[in-house]
């Protein structure tokens, strides 16, 4: 475990701004930025509800933006900062895109693809593995998700009523939010 640098902290803050924007527009609050040579080259937030496409996760949006100005090969020298551990789909996509490294806020126990459910960053594949560091501003990431999941999803064919849910503000296993852990 090591202390995050001010730059890493800053880039994660930018990812959080995207996540907040997603929450404000009724999307799952996940945000990310792509950083190449200390410069943000792509911003992404979840876009599944607006697009009606369940695969439009923040990572894909950010990559799409980056590739307007950079070739795919530039991802090999690019890092991803994302508020929540990439899901199985995104973890596999980042491997295909040969991302340099991934920094995330909180783990994703339902869909996480870089350590929680599967370890697609390090499993056998025809592209090289990538390192993953988790835990940067973990609690902020969890709070954003809780604020989202307490709402009802009125877009689903059968919305589940959630009137009596209360926002949980407790954290267990709090290891501080300024530390990075290699997955």
């Amino acid at each position, binding site marked *: 475990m090591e202390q995050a640098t001010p730059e890493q902290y800053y880039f994660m803050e930018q990812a959080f701004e995207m996540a907040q924007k997603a929450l404000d527009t009724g999307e799952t609050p996940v945000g990310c930025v792509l950083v190449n040579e200390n410069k943000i080259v792509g911003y992404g937030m979840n876009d599944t509800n607006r697009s009606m496409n369940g*695969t439009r996760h923040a990572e894909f949006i950010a990559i799409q933006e980056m590739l307007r100005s950079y070739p795919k090969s530039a991802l090999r020298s690019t890092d991803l900062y994302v508020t929540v551990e990439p*899901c199985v789909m995104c973890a596999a996509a980042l491997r295909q895109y040969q991302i340099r490294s991934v920094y995330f806020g909180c783990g994703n126990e*339902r*869909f996480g693809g870089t350590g929680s*459910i599967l370890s697609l960053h390090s499993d056998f594949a025809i*592209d090289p593995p990538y390192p993953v560091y988790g835990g940067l501003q973990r609690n902020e990431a969890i709070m954003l998700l809780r604020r989202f999941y307490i709402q009802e999803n009125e877009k689903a064919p059968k*919305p589940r009523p959630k009137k009596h849910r209360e926002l949980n503000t407790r954290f267990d296993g709090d290891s501080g939010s300024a530390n990075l852990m290699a997955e």
Partner: protein
Amino acid sequence: MKVQEILRGVQALVGEVTPIKTVQETQPVEEYDDAYVAGVNVKNAAKVVKVLDAAFPRDPARPMNHLRRFAKQANLPHPLHPLLLADHPSAQTIFVLISPPLPDVGRLQELLAPFVSNPDNAQDPAGQVKLYTVKVPTLPPLGTAQAEKWSKELWPVVYNPAAARGTVSPNIQVLNRTREFIQPDAGRYLALAHKVAEEAEQCGRGRKVGAVVVDPEIVSRILDADEDIESRWADAIVAVAGDARYSRREAGGLSTAELHTGVGPNPATEAYNADLEGGPELHALMRAAEIIAYKRRAGDPEAETDKPSLSPLETYFLAQTDSTESDPQDPSPVPEKYQKTSHDHAQAIPISTSVPADKPTSRIRPRSQGGYLCTDLDVYINREPCVCCCMGLLLSRFRAVVFPQTGRMVTGGLASEPAVRPVSVPVSAAAEDEHEYENEHSKRQNKDTHDQDYAEEAEQRLYYGLHWRKELNWRALGFEFIRDGECGFGDESGEGRAEDRVAFYA
């Protein structure tokens, strides 16, 4: 018209639709943990349960119902006899199991103290109830054989078929019903998927991968109306999508497809060069989800933004209307799943009740009429989708996915175990003799060399069985299509197994 010629030219593949086993079935996990055992008087058994359950409530997320709470002396596994029977010779003694997570020892001893059998040597030198640590399986057994083995070696275990199957594989009735439903037309849809794949490759936009998405509800309506599915199978197709990995312009330059000025397949298909592979959102399955999403957005204020760029086959199918839904004299019944929400959510009312007969309707219901992602649709694809696309399939809520077994890919995410190969061609076995594992490993890390032996790669692939994993919130039914007489060799075009050719992500 050319597309209709292609449709007429579709020769249905002949073969069997076979469920892909789940990884819970093919790679069963056995997990063990420590538990405590204590001897108590058999007359106190009911009280012991009450006291323990009150003090240490059971965690419903970790059900331990497969472990018997009590074992009589006669039911103890033999390996535990020396540990337990020396201290507890009394026939009045029954053994209680305290399953993980283990409680505080002192508190447990205090609770059990009133219930021990007096003739036994039940206390340790400090006067506390003796607790014995044993190993128990923390997951329910998958069959009677496993239950018997554990009962003989570890601790008496109960096998409950219903409880075990729920986390292991899909409901068997649903699986069989869906397989029977898919079987009659699967060969045709897969043959068309191959045509879509050929189009994608021949126009230089992508690799030879194609997907066909079918709405089983339309198939049902055709069958219910006693229509001839032989001639109307294509009416249930809601979208087709080909691979388009070379079509994207990056950094403002020309795309790999545009740089290829000749005819026929793009030269990039001959090898795997990551820089030219586009990305998974350009794969056939992801594009199918994107095309369907585009139609779902019809009527949105910005419906035409992000319009996908379509091939002729893709354009043709997207423009087709649903000929099974527009008869107002015989409105098809409102599907049950929409009825429940229809009173308070007007948007969930399906189109069949509200659209005049003269207005043909799209086969893809927009969101304003209850359409949602790719819910309840089936996708037929000529190659095993990559791990990324498989999760995209789940996130899109497809009902089922079907691909030919010869289309397995080393990068695939669906297969859960190696295919049974009927003829022993020991290519990989011979290769293994020649190279040490270390050599393999260093070669693997140097991805610039393109001299990989594809057969070796097939040996190394992982079997994710992503369609139905207990850890994931969304699941789909997965099927492989095994052609008659081919037994795993040769694909639609007689090219052999995809796993033996250049490795890429489908």
